[in-house]
């Protein structure tokens, strides 16, 4: 295992994307998130945060720049290698609609294991162990696996769905969790509760967390905070 100090290290990124109607320019000079820390990026939608998360998770490849995630240079990887890297190392939680509606709660949590050998191995060596691990995570995040485990994901409440999504992100202990406004569809009480459990998981698993939000109240809970406008210069101009 390499000794890595920064979980995410981005510099001199440039990404532009355009079609006949719009031009989109994205520039980032420097962004570093050390390992085992929790970072929050504050910013509203349309500020380029989705592009940033896309680049870190390896779905978007910028035109130029340095992208080092967990010590690996994503810029040098092929698309397929980046997909593999993401499956192995990154858990992602979206704002909402995180689950495949036609799979059960447990099946949703187990999905990452089916796509990554590395995460499978870290859970154990048999199907029973995988299921045990998934149930443990669900229970820890406050969704009773006994009660909801076999229910279709689409029947769960929004709050429950976010917790299941978190369980899915954590299964197989990926070293990096990326969350894109995971609490914006929750009320304040659920939000606090959700974040509490999120932090509990990151500290037990020694996971680096990067969260994007527009809620300034939660800043104190994080080790590091960033304003998106400080990191990124992005422009969206309409052609005439």
């Amino acid at each position, binding site marked *: 295992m390499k000794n890595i100090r920064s979980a995410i290290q981005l510099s001199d990124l440039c990404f532009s994307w355009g079609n006949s109607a719009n031009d989109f320019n994205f520039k980032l000079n420097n962004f570093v998130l050390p390992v085992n820390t929790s970072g929050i990026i504050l910013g509203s939608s349309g500020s380029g945060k989705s592009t940033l*998360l896309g680049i870190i998770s390896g779905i978007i490849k910028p035109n130029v720049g340095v992208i080092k995630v967990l010590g690996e240079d994503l810029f040098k990887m092929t*698309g397929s290698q980046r997909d*593999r890297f993401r499956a192995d190392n990154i858990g992602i939680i979206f704002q909402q609609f*995180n689950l495949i*509606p036609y799979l059960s709660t447990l099946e949703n949590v187990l*999905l990452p294991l089916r796509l990554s050998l590395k995460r499978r191995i870290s859970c154990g060596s048999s199907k029973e162990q995988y299921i045990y691990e998934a149930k443990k995570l669900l229970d820890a995040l406050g969704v009773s696996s006994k009660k909801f485990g076999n229910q279709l994901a689409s029947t769960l409440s929004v709050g429950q769905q976010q917790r299941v999504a978190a369980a*899915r992100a954590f299964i197989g202990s990926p070293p990096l969790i990326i969350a894109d406004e995971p609490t914006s569809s929750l009320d304040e009480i659920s939000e606090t509760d959700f974040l509490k459990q999120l932090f509990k998981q990151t500290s037990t698993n020694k996971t680096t967390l990067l969260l994007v939000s527009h809620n300034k109240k939660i800043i104190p809970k994080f080790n590091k905070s960033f304003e998106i406008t400080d990191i990124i210069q992005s422009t969206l101009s309409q052609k005439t």
Partner: protein
Amino acid sequence: MLVFNLAYKSIMNRKLTSLLTIISISLSVILILSVEKIRKSTRTSFINTISGTDLVIGPRASGIQLLLYSVFHMGDATANITIKTVEDIKKRSEIDWVVPISLGDSHKGFRVIGTTNNYFERIRYRRNMTLKFDKGNSFSNLFEAVIGNDVANSLGYNVGDKIILAHGTGDVIFGKDHSDTPFIISGILEKTGTPSDRAVIVSLEAIEAIHIGWNSGTYDKKIKTVKDYKAMNLKPTNVTALFVGLKSRMTTFSFQRWINRYSQEPITAILPGVVFGELWSLIVNIEKALLIVTSMVVFTALLGMIVSILSSLNERRREMAILRSLGAKPIHIFTLFITESSCIAFLGVFSGATAMYALLFTFKPIIEKFTGLYIEITSPGNNEFIIMLIIILASIISGIIPALRAYSLSLSDGLIVKS
């Protein structure tokens, strides 16, 4: 394995749409397979109209014409063969049996065939099946007739009923019928699905008898009673055509040559199978048209499948983004959609083929009874398998369209879906 599992669960999740798509594909498969089945059966039953007859001999004419009036009782003969020629043919050593027929009269639109008693033994259909009597027996008296099953059914005749034959093949017209010589029905044939169903069969002598006194179209009545006719010891002077069986099939062509070179009278001999082939080739275009129409139905069903998958794509962009975030490659997304469409198509084809056979078993007796079309139930032949294979292949190919769309959407959407 993940992809198969997802595809299965996704299909099950959209049960109604999937079921409707499967049904529409299976209906089209039922249609195309039954058209194929009926086409084959029609062809077989057409060719099996006559079986066991090596040659048909008639006055010189085109083979198709001879076959049409002798076997199918369609159209009229242009000339007759004299009885002397018949005797000459009978003397040949190659001959096993000869069944002469004499046409030209009718009964309420049904053709009358004058022939000999061995007609019922020699004229066979469908792989060597003989004509059997549903009721009664063959004719044994001069004025007795055997009628086909359709004749008995449509006119409500039974054994023992009296019928009057008409001169020519039109309806019975006053002054032009053989009302002085009524026939008693001696037997009714079983349904065969061949032209025999629509025939009234009498002896050659009877044909002779009813024409006595008829000269150049007018009737001069001199003889009154059946006894009188019998006393005359009637002998036919000519016949319309001959069905011939040879002792050895090896001699068919040499005997045909001999007939075609016969110098006393212009006559011709045909091999029924060969002429059936010529006749059927006239129908091939209709077959093609049928095939095109049914292919269009299949095409429409596949189009329906594409539309239903395409229209579900938008609501599934979220699902694709989730899978991508979990590390699924775009090719996984592509395979997921291809698998879904292939599963639906396979289920459609399989259930269609099964339903077709179930329908066939159920309706075979009814179809046979009402149309006389004998449908042989066999395990799917090469043609059927090729058709099913083509449909499955076509659906996989058409599944590529939504799959490609999903592929490109998942690439451009990435993790973001504007909902």
